[in-house]
């Protein structure tokens, strides 16, 4: 069983945190991951920065630009992560745009992920049908779970299709937006969460986009298996550095 699947089987609501690798400083990657685990985070998305992050709002754009300026590359990230499984046990997912993976070589990328102990990938601009036709076999060969996004505009038919291709969780984007765009959920969102909840999907859902504090985390996890925080955490390390991660995680969980 993949670590993601094991974690999803636990009887608890999951907190997942996204951070941009190479930010605020190039060598913060391992420190951030270890601190997040130590403070009770269940799963981590390691953001591989990209020059043109289409689906991201200003916070993650800025952190990506800074990380690239700091010298972050695919090679550097893999080097930083090579011993991560000596200290960290929770599921680790790499989240990034497709072009850097495509240039590295999709198979070489997946193989490297397996060697390091990465459990899954989230690639917002790799459409599910291209994945299914061209890459699914490679991902499976290296034991990687690919996570797909759905949005309030995704049709039921397509959600069922995505569910059939998925074998981990479904990343439920809370509203039509780029990352970090909004705060708090209104009835439009909660109705959407309820609608998806009633679809009896085989994969659990984890809500992302718009989760920034204890209130939104609690609200989201009423409807889903877990929630992902990205921009709010990136803002936190921008303002406070990597040494007060405990404060941030505690403020979400308690």
């Amino acid at each position, binding site marked *: 069983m993949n670590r993601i699947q094991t974690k999803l089987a636990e009887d608890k609501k999951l907190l997942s945190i996204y951070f941009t690798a190479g930010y605020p400083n190039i060598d913060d990657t391992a420190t951030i991951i270890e601190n997040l685990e130590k403070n009770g985070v269940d799963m981590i998305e390691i953001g591989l920065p990209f020059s*043109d992050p289409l*689906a991201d709002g200003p916070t993650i754009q800025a952190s990506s630009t800074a990380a690239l300026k700091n010298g972050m590359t695919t090679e550097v990230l893999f080097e930083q992560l090579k011993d991560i499984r000596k200290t960290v046990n929770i599921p680790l997912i790499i989240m990034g745009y*497709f072009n*850097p993976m*495509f240039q590295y070589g999709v198979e070489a990328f997946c193989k490297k992920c397996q060697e390091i102990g990465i459990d899954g990938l989230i690639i917002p601009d*790799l*459409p599910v049908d291209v994945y299914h036709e061209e890459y699914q076999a490679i991902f499976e060969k290296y034991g990687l779970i690919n996570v*797909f996004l759905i949005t309030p*505009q995704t049709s039921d038919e397509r959600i069922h299709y995505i569910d059939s291709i998925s074998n981990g969780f479904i990343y439920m984007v809370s509203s*039509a937006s780029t990352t970090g765009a909004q705060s708090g959920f209104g009835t439009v969102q909660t109705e959407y969460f309820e609608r998806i909840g009633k679809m009896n999907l085989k994969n659990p859902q984890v809500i992302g986009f718009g989760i920034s504090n204890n209130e939104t985390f609690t609200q989201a996890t009423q409807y889903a298996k877990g929630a992902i925080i990205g921009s709010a955490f990136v803002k936190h390390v921008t303002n406070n550095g990597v040494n007060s991660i405990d404060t941030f995680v505690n403020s979400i969980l308690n």
Partner: protein
Amino acid sequence: MKLKICGMKYQDNIKHVATLQPDYLGFIFYEKSARNFDSESIPDIDEAIKKTGVFVDATLEFVIDKINKHNLQAVQLHGNESPEYCSTLKSEKVEIIKVFSVKDEFNFERLKPYEAVCDFFLFDTKGKHPGGNGYTFDWNLLSDYPSTKPFFLSGGIGLEEIEDIKQFTNSKASKYCYALDVNSKFEIEPGLKNIEALKAFKKNLSEVLDYKKEHVMNYNVNEKGYYGEFGGAFIPEMLYPNVEELRQNYLKVMAEPDFIKEFDQLLKDYVGRPSPLYFAKRLSEKYNTKIYLKREDLNHTGAHKINNTIGQILMAKRLGKHRIIAETGAGQHGVATATVCALMGLECIVYMGEIDIARQAPNVARMKMLGAKVVPALSGSRTLKDATNEAIRDWINNPVDTHYIIGSAIGPHPYPDMVTRFQSVISEEIKWQLKEQTGNENPDYLVACIGGGSNAAGTYYHYLHEPEVGIIAVEAAGLGVDSGESAATSVLGKEGIIHGCKTLLMQTKDGQITEPYSISAGLDYPGVGPMHAHLAKTGRAEFMAITDDDAMNAGLELCKLEGIIPAIESSHALAIFEQRKFKPNDVVVVSLSGRGDKDLNNYIEYFKI
């Protein structure tokens, strides 16, 4: 030429025939046919063989059900199916083959409405039944075939026709013949094919069937949105509903008679088309060849960009969108978008890099006067690439009421194809204008500058499958291809993904997109449209790179020799005459994509005027 074997019915016979490796196998879904396919399923056959469903005026639901149930890759339509019907099916990602029956004569005008919505035509003998009548028609009628759409030849083809076929393939009439379609002449009984006879047919025609004519290479987008290996739709899920809505509707809408009428009318009365095709006498004398300029610079708003924005605003209205967004680099596309939004009374938001806003102040003012809101793109390098990112982000945040008018032949499918089709009015006009002026509709060369490549795509479109017409694509070399300050994507680019499509793009070895450079803001893009990437890769187009200096000098030369001040983008295309020799009798058509008013400051600074 390809081979299609039609009227398959029996399971074992299907498997057996499949071992002969035809390119298409046809299954008739028509109850009145003796070959009606009524089995539950089609046996597993080699995936390279395209399973083709044959229908006669069936309901769309029926056809779509069969496509899904049997995983059909093509549908062949034998009845009176309308162009709208064809375009609906096209969104099912299958090849569309529309059948026309021919007897002693044929009115080729009938094909026109189907050009945009079918992949192939099929010519069959007119007879008692819709197909399978068993005798041929006079293939010489196809000598007058006015289209460039590849077609299937059908009707009564058997072993006795082998010599006729050989003769036919050497004649003009076969120029666009893509495949032979056989059926009843190879049967033991209806639906049961004679393997030995088919084998003999294949063997005797092996030269014809294995011979790949150059024009059969397809330079148009395929049913999945690719040009060869380039194109596709690499978009986040948040954009899927918008792009999918457009994909399902664009061909259908473009085939609607009232859409065509309104588009043509606006191009004529508002844009001022047709734009002249001008024989540049003094320029021709200087370079000792025959140079014709396609005067897109004389369009309303001063460039070819308006052809596309008129098309897309009409599309947006039919899709019920009332908020329009666009990206712009130099501001030409922004102005063209603001113009059509004013024309239609729609809200307009234009994203423009902060740096471009500073260096293109007159166009920013124009957009504002036309009622558009200009939003600075503050991220990344703050130029065109980032303006495009911002426009895409806007679309993600406003998925329901907004249409994104992309200004070039780039972006996720169907944008490159849609923009190309709207711009193809350029080559449509060149064809008749050149014929009027020279007696021949084909030039020896077509020349256009390429950033994303929309004026080039429009200039080439109706000539892509005319192998005798040379295509020259001119990129911006900036300070020199190897200077590190260049936008010559076909040389410096590698396959990758930018703004939703797979194409050639300038990037680091790590896959980060890099900033191009050119003095011309319209060519300053790190990627190139997927169609052009395909033309580069297949060698269909010859790519040249022109430096800032050479372009500026060519621009000034046109002023002095012909009294025309060209846009710096177009000056790149004009600069090739210093570098590449043409024969005195060569007819070279250059797309003069825009006028130079917007570049006056650049010209003044550069030449210290």
